[in-house]
């Protein structure tokens, strides 16, 4: 899923300074699963903002909505009938969702209520970690199902570097060395022959470096 973290309330209050009448928009997708931008978070954030505004001697009108997904046009359109009645939309969906709203509602300012994180997994309640950078050229079949681009702090293709000690990455004591994980897994799978080969230079053009990406599936159009 796409993960995220709430922005500090002070930062949101500052963004809202010019406005007294807004929509607060959540999303039922990834941000609901990682509990940063779902229906419940909309309610909690709206209450917090109202109280903070009252404490500052001003009121704010907040319309609370949660779309099925902010990244799909059919759901985004549900906001169209009323969006121009408000001064701004504060969205707590991921960056894709926020931008899609901005694109569809061109005369309404869009404000981000969360910081979008990464493509990751739930380790346990309250802990998520990154797994994929969406580089567009998957090599997981060669690396024991563990991504060197994402899991190695240097995205090495022939790791581990000299900073790997007892399975821990030099960058952070809480971070496992991605290449130690890869090697352990290759050994377990009896696939170490995959290690001893020079890999071609990665084509980053399928990644972000090639510019904003598009996927067109002719079979679906």
């Amino acid at each position, binding site marked *: 899923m796409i993960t995220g973290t709430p922005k500090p309330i002070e930062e949101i209050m500052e963004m809202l300074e010019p406005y007294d009448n807004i929509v607060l928009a959540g999303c039922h997708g990834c941000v609901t699963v990682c509990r940063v931008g779902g229906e419940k978070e909309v309610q909690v954030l709206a209450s917090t903002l109202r109280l903070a505004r009252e404490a500052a001697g001003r009121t704010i009108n907040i319309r609370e909505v949660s779309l099925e997904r902010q990244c799909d046009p059919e759901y985004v359109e549900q906001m169209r009938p009323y969006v121009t009645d408000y001064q701004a939309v504060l969205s707590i969906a991921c960056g894709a969702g926020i931008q899609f709203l901005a694109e569809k509602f061109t005369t309404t300012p869009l404000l981000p209520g969360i910081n979008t994180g990464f493509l990751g997994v739930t380790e346990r309640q309250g802990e998520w970690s990154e797994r994929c950078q969406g580089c567009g050229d998957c090599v997981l079949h060669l690396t024991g199902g563990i991504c060197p681009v994402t899991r190695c702090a240097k995205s*090495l293709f022939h790791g581990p570097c000299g900073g790997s000690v007892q399975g821990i990455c030099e960058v952070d004591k809480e971070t496992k060395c991605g290449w130690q994980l890869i090697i352990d897994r290759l050994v377990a799978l009896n696939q170490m022959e995959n290690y*001893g080969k020079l890999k071609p230079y990665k084509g980053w053009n399928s990644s972000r470096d090639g510019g904003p990406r598009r996927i067109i599936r002719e079979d679906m159009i």
Partner: protein
Amino acid sequence: MKSGSNLEKVLAAGHFSVTAECGPPRGADPDIVRKKAAFVKGNVDACNVTDNQTSVVRMSSLAGCLLIKEEGIEPLIQMVVRDRNRIALQSDLLGASAMGVRNLLCLSGDHQKFGDDPQAKNVFDIDSMQLIHLAKTMRDDGVFPSGDKLQGAPMFYIGCAVNPFADPFEIRVPRLKLKMEAGADFVQTQCIYNMEKFKKYMELAKREGLPEKIKILAGVTPLKSAGMAKFMRKMVAGMDIPDAVVNRIAAEPKEKQADKGIEMCIEQIQELKEMEGIAGVHVMAIEWEEKLAEIVGGAGLLPRPVVE
């Protein structure tokens, strides 16, 4: 000869080689480099110039190489893939070769987290293994990796680094083999203090026949004090300093610890000289270049051979 570098010639002639390193200054003052160069001159076959080591910004490695070259020392340019993509790396390889730099060390580079710009964006477009391959392709095939022909191939004696003490140990020799196959002519190791573990590493390397295919230069760093040993052991990932080494220097009174460190380093070089498969030493006297002559001379490695 692949590059015609002095280091290549000395090693090809079968001499036990000596390299050292010079860290460029945190500023634009060329005299700092010249002063260090004066301590290095005559004591080495080539001198590494580091490339923003530990991600702390310094004068560029290429500029440092040219400055020591002007002082009559053969430079060895260190190049990390942390800060430059393949376009910049190729361009700098061409520039370095054009300016007469004939030795190259291909490195990943310490993560930017450790430097003074931890918020910097890193590059890691290709890794150090692929940089070796890139330099070799340009040198031997006279083409860019894209396939286009070069207007003059860069000439480098290509090196790599290894840390025999990082984990997992089992992968360390296979990784050196991979670097050799990618095109490395020589390797400089991380500072060795744990000689027992290094011997094990060399046994495995010999089993793979690596000393015949790649020149292995053993890395040493003289300890200035027991405090330095403890600090390095604690702070530098993959630095293996056994208790016996720390205790030996700690047993000396503070004012004599530096001398002891030099003595231990000389002893170690003498042991390495006798070790099968070791082609030379890489003496990293960090901010202690003035001791190089004493160390290299003390180990019986002066004067340096002149090979035509």
